[in-house]
């Protein structure tokens, strides 16, 4: 793995890590690391820095739904034009094209059940190339992006051992 990839690995794990620290750990100059990070930002490789919030600790009452969508692809653009249209709705947090029994999977967030239902029935389902939708409301998040949200026993190493 080259050093650029390693810098990215460090930053995906903790975007607040300092360039000096990365430099020390990868045997690089700090300025070299800074340049690489600047490059990632300029090239849209690093798109954004944001905090990961534990959903079990925040009671904002929001609801999330995973929505399976079957669409009719279009000659020339395939799935892209209809997908881009769906993705533009701010309610859609993520959108993926999948293989299998349906085509798109949208992750939609709203303030309550009614809001999400209204979005699906009025906005999503009425798009011309959308054939059908199946909505699954999310009940609990256990793990996301490699982070487990449930309380874990802290490992208790002795503080001094030979």
């Amino acid at each position, binding site marked *: 793995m080259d050093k650029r990839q390693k810098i990215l690995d460090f930053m995906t794990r903790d975007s607040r890590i300092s360039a000096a620290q990365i430099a*020390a750990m990868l045997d690089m100059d700090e300025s070299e690391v800074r340049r690489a990070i600047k490059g990632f930002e300029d090239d849209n490789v690093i798109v954004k820095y944001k905090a990961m919030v534990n959903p079990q600790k925040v009671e904002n009452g929001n609801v999330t739904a995973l929505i399976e969508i079957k669409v009719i692809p279009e000659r020339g653009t395939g799935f892209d034009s209809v997908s881009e249209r769906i993705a533009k709705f701010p309610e859609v947090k993520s959108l993926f094209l999948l293989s299998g029994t349906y085509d798109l999977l949208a992750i939609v967030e709203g303030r309550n059940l009614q809001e999400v239902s209204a979005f699906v029935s009025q906005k999503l389902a009425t798009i011309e190339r959308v054939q059908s939708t199946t909505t699954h409301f999310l009940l609990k998040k256990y793990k996301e992006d490699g982070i487990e949200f449930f309380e874990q026993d802290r490992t208790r190493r002795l503080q*001094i051992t*030979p």
Partner: protein
Amino acid sequence: MNEKVKAIPPSGIRKFFDMVSEMKDVVSLGVGEPDFVTPWHIREGSIYALEKGHTSYTSNKGMKELREEIAKYAAETFNAPYDPNNILVTVGVSEAFDLALRALLNPNDEVIIPEPCYVSYKPLSYLCNAKPVVIGTKEEDEFELRAEDIEEAITRKTKAIVLNYPNNPTGATLSKKRMNEIANTILQNKIWLISDEIYSELTYDGSHTSFASSEEMRKRMIFLHGFSKAFAMTGFRIGYAAGPEETISLMTKIHQYSMLCAPTMGQMAAIEALRKGKEEMLKMKEEYDQRRKLIVKGLNKIGLNCFMPKGAFYAFPSIKSTGLSSEMFCEELLKKEKVATVPGNAFGRSGEGFIRCSYAASIDEINTALERIEKFINNM
């Protein structure tokens, strides 16, 4: 009570352990075990074994399946082919080491022990009524042992030498050249080698060469290894010894009476580790390597001279510039800045003037510890 046991001095680590346990907000660089939890697939393997009811004794030597996996691993990883029948699964390398001494030594035999070294080598030799003969390794040699120092220490009574590379507490490894010289000395003088290679996978800047990769050496040595460090499995307590048939059979005799067998769920976990654990092990190794560079750079920047250790997960900086003894330094550092380290002299007299800093700690902990040590030194 037994006079011999009573006469053994308490471990130099004990005092610090007691102090730390009374304190809050301590950042510890004093831990001699991985900060990773055992990889989940290994834990899951052990849980599965329990569910399936693998809760009885195994054969004294350990499960055949495990010994076969160990033989395969030793051959592939260390170029050290052993017959599974000449492998004994033990309760950690600690037990294996004790058995090796008890199988080899007669009263008044001499055992050469290079220091600084792991805390159990001397007391256990002493309990065998043998005489530990200590050689000090030096900072200017990056704590590598020199064959000429062994030559000097050898007498007619010398039975064995104990080596531990990569080394706890110094992080030193042996160069191929030094290793060949030492091997020649051992063979020429017909003494035994007990080689504790528990940290071998954690060798950075190059790869580990085992003494057991030489056919001639395999006839004169007991190879000790285990799962605790590389696979982050300390609590499972699984180690092993490999060696010539006669030695292993004597060790097995003691083991069968004192231990019967190593824990069964630990053995099951070890099988899983050897079959599927390499990828996660290499990931942990890479992280240690990065932290090694971070801590060594940090210590040198603070003014604590530290050579770049090539193995294990310890940095061994000199604190001589502060004018304090190792013990004073660690005690004051702990009291004033709440950073726990281990004084070098806990590992033998030649460790005086150094402290052991384990980098089996998170990056945050290492950074906080470095900041606090810097503050401590600046306020001196």
